[in-house]
């Protein structure tokens, strides 16, 4: 699958909501490529972009969401593996990143499109502290009930202070 | 009469060790079949000695009197079961006149009592695992009831042709199935033996019928809350049950004595050691029956589901035993024609 076509389709449907995109192609010879595509999307059209991706082929969420922390915002990264057709080595990584302002840490759930993402979203809620809206099961996944509210273990710079 | 009481006491004392060694042999043999080294044969005895020293924990949610009383009832009934099944036979093989005839119907009921005691103890323990185990044990009890009853009835039917008392165990020593039946009767006898061999692992709670104790499902089920001395009582009950049920199969199907088979007698000096040889022969037969019925079957099979167990017993095993019964019923008529 051509990465340009994915970006074009998304841009046609969502217009300027696509903030940036870049791709990385590693060639292994014999026409076999490892393709990774990074797309930044704003929060409003994030949900609909996943819905569009879902129509393109088999969409699989690969890891729980990593994040990058900045002064005023958090960049949440959703790594997807997208497979359009049933040929070998055709799966490409589509990595969607969304900026969320720190004073409003909220994002809409994607479990209505990719139900398998539930565990990942629950982990995001408890580890990073981003509130997932409309999540079917908001309980904590790993830390049970013994972690005090407001402590998010993977928020590195602040977690040490908040723990003490 | 005094001699008989002596024999009864000897049976109980020897029964403890024989039963535990029987379980040890079972474990060693299973290990051999699974290409392992396995525990020493005396391991069940060490287990009992260890449990004797352990603390007995009684869960706070349990019904105390029932929880502690049930293992005692189970052990007592296990001892009674062993005595009732083997006393007349042991007296017979060592050449004493037994005052007990051994009633087949009573044996059918006695077999139930240890299991019922364990079930009530499990329900009294208040553990959900134990309750599930107890429910399963009840299902197994009810499913094995029909085959056992059919086997006992057919054997009584066979004996009824003779001048002996049909429901007495003693009649079988003289009037065995194999010697006094035609081709149909022997075929029927084989089917009945097969049914009893399949009932044995179910009564002993062993794979493939160990649902009541299933370790990986409900963590030893009925026994989950027992510890220390109470657990030792349950293990002893198990040993007595293993011994008595295998002995029952031996008595029902192979009551032959060594001297009777080979026409030999042994003595050292003026003392006859034939009774000793006979008892060793009897224990040997018990070990063989237990190894076939429990060890081999548990090594080659996986645990079934409780619904499958009910089906196996209510349809397959019952059918086998009923066909066996019909064959035995037809047999004397064949001879008459």
């Amino acid at each position, binding site marked *: 699958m051509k990465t340009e076509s994915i970006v074009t389709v998304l841009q046609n449907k969502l217009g300027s909501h696509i903030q940036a995109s870049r791709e990385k192609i590693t060639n292994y010879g014999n026409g076999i490529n490892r393709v990774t595509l990074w797309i930044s999307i704003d929060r409003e059209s994030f949900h609909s972009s996943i819905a569009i991706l879902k129509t393109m082929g088999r969409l699989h969420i690969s890891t729980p969401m990593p994040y990058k922390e900045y002064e005023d915002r958090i960049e949440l990264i959703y*790594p997807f593996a997208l497979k359009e057709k049933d040929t070998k*080595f055709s799966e490409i*990584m589509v990595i969607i990143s969304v900026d969320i302002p720190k004073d409003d840490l909220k994002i809409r759930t994607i479990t209505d499109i990719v139900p*398998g993402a*539930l565990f990942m979203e629950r982990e995001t809620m408890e580890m990073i502290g981003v509130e997932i809206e409309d999540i079917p099961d908001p309980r904590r996944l*790993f*830390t049970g009930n013994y972690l005090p509210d407001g402590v998010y273990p993977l928020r590195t710079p602040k977690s040490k202070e908040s723990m003490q | 009469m005094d001699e008989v009481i002596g024999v009864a006491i000897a049976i109980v004392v020897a029964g403890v060790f024989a039963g535990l060694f029987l379980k040890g042999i079972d474990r060693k043999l299973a290990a051999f079949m699974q290409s392992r080294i396995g525990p020493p044969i005396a391991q069940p005895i060490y287990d009992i000695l260890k449990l004797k020293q352990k603390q007995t924990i009684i869960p706070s949610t349990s019904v105390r009197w029932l929880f502690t009383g049930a293992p005692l009832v189970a052990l007592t009934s296990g001892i009674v079961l062993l005595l009732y099944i083997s006393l007349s036979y042991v007296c017979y093989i060592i050449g004493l006149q037994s005052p007990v005839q051994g009633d087949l119907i009573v044996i059918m009921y006695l077999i139930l009592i240890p299991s019922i005691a364990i079930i009530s103890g499990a329900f009294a323990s208040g553990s959900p695992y134990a309750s*599930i185990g107890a429910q399963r044990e009840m299902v197994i009890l009810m499913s094995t009831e029909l085959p056992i009853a059919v086997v006992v009835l057919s054997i009584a039917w066979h004996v009824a042709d003779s001048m002996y008392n049909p429901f007495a165990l003693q009649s079988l020593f003289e009037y065995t199935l194999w010697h006094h039946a035609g081709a149909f009767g022997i075929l029927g006898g084989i089917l009945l033996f097969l049914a009893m061999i399949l009932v044995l692992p179910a009564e002993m709670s062993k794979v493939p019928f160990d649902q009541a104790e299933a*370790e990986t*499902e409900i963590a030893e089920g009925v026994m989950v809350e027992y510890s220390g001395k109470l657990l030792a009582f349950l293990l002893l009950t198990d040993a007595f049950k293993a011994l008595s049920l295998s002995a029952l199969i031996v008595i029902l199907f192979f009551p032959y004595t060594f001297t009777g088979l080979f026409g030999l007698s042994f003595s050292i000096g003026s003392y006859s050691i034939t009774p000793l040889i006979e008892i060793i022969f009897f224990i040997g037969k018990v070990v063989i029956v237990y190894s076939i019925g429990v060890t081999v079957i548990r090594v080659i099979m996986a645990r079934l589901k409780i619904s499958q167990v009910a089906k196996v017993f209510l349809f397959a095993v019952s059918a086998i035993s009923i066909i066996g019964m019909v064959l035995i019923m037809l047999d004397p008529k064949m001879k008459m024609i």
Partner: protein
Amino acid sequence: MKSDITYPLNIGPVHPAFKEPIKFTFRIEGEKVVGADIDFGYTHRAIERIAQERNYIQIIYLLERVCGICSFSHPMAYCLAIEDVAGIEVPPRARYIRTIVGELERLHSHLLWTGVAAHEIGFDTLFMYTWNIREKVLDCLEELTGNRINYAMLTIGGVRRDITADNAQTIHQVLEYYEELYNRTSEILLDDLTLRARTEGVGILTIEQAERLCAVGPTARGSGLMKDVRVDYPVNAYYEILWLKPVSPRDIGKEPIGDVYDRMAVRVLEIQQAIKIIQFCMENLPEGDINTGSGAVKMINALKKLEGEGVGRYEAPRGEVCHYVILDNQEHPVQIKVKAPTYSNGFTWAPMLTNIEIADIPIVVASIDPCVACADRMTYVQADGSRTTISWEELRAKSIQKYKGVRRQWMK
């Protein structure tokens, strides 16, 4: 009005059916399971958090400890991710050696699973048998890498030890041994009556559910979903094996319905596939270097100056392992996100565990080959009943104190 006759049944956190702590709460109606809930979090070891304070080479050995059985797969995915960021090209011989060790790991993992599954349904003879024949591949791995598990074979840009002529001899012997045993083993596993009675039609995961819930590995393939990172995505030497395709129960002429039997069939077939892949790699093992030649210090210094993100995906025996690393001009990664196969497959328990009997719970849970420790790899500092939280430093001091005490006891 129908009265509520269900009752709750807790299985776990510690239970003989599970080899690792995990808690299930079932709603039971008689012997039927009508509802299930899962609770993770009993084996947290803070690996992602610790990784943020280690350098790039140390992390390889840290990640081997994510899981004892997939101790090749996790560092593999991490190395692929770092090589992706840094643009390191791995020499062909190293790629082949990685493939060989990875497939030997698959061989021993699948044999291990078979034994565990047999034990779950009370078939201890099969358990003993498979674990007995598994020793051979472990011995082979020990000779190749120096260790039965936690091989420490990988480094960024290649592998650390070469396969010598002696090793090659051993590998050939091991492959012959398994080829001889394969027919007998697969016959026991796929045709035994009681095994079939316990596994057929139990714990069904349809292909649609598998796709929606993002199932991976043998769990997905057992449902007929052709998902295999080795085939979908170019990794190691797999893309040079032209005949490689995802296995499915169709290979033994059975239409997959996604029950436990199908998942078992997939694993049995993958044992055969692994033997073939190793044979291919041994025949086509190229000559050359086994790593980039730069030592650990040089590598760390090079990686320190990098900025960027990378994904590493690898097909572990249990399914897809995916690591995401973020580098930012530091001696240690800003973030490393680990996903183990059980993390994806854990959610598929929900449809599998409804409408089964209590007796099926252990085998259905085991059928995805769960590795709770892998899924549970994350943070947390333990708090006791009084709900006080203690800091990392305090915890470390406390553990040192505790182990000093233990040592003192031993000395006596």
